[in-house]
């Protein structure tokens, strides 16, 4: 997994997570870019590179599946849940480290 791919995944994930929220999106882009540029002069065999890339990939998947935008409408918040958002319930939480999305084989409850 190359750093450039991680960079692209992270940028894409930010675009999914902060869609339509220009201020946050710009801040996310800047922060991602700063993080990568801090390390851009490391030698190719530096041992810190692989963990840094793994970290970037994890952040990307977190942004994609575990961040949901909300807009306050009156008393409640309206959430924008998209197709990559992880959705579990009380049962699936016992399954442990699996990503749960709609449309997948795993149906919960009485289905």
């Amino acid at each position, binding site marked *: 997994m190359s750093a450039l*791919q991680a*960079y*692209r995944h992270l940028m894409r994930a930010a675009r999914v997570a902060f869609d339509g929220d220009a201020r946050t999106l710009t801040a996310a882009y800047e922060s991602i870019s700063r993080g*990568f*540029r801090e390390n*851009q002069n490391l030698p190719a065999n530096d041992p810190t590179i692989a963990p840094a890339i793994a970290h970037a990939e994890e952040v990307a998947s977190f942004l994609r599946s575990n961040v949901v935008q909300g807009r306050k409408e009156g008393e409640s918040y309206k959430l924008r849940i998209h197709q990559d958002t992880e959705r579990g319930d009380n049962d699936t939480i016992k399954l442990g480290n699996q990503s749960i999305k709609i449309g997948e084989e795993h149906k919960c409850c009485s289905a």
Partner: protein
Amino acid sequence: MFRTAALTAARVARPAVASAVRVAGVARPAGAFVAAVPKVAAFQAVRFYSAGGHLKKEEVFSRIAQVLSGFDKVNDPKNITETAHFANDLGLDSLDTVEVVMAIEEEFSIEIPDKDADQIHSVDKAVEYILSQPDAN
């Protein structure tokens, strides 16, 4: 369901609209309405989903050039040519290239898979890729 109906209607209406435009174009005496040209250009600036046909190479290039000229890390806007290489001619590093390719994706409303995106290092490669994508608009 409404959407499907609307799409069907649009698809049915499209040939009629297209021929109407063509007829209008033919009927206009050559050179009689020079002032009408900007109007036509303004009309084309709005792209309809129903507007079929392929992107023109010149149009793709001019839109990519526009994306690049809005990118503040390009060393000199004069260097944006049809064959410019992102790194060698425009002074962009590999991270900038990723950003440019993503901006191009956004401009043409497509998503370029990683393996293809990694191959795009110059303006002509980008133009070529966009032209090969039927979904690009």
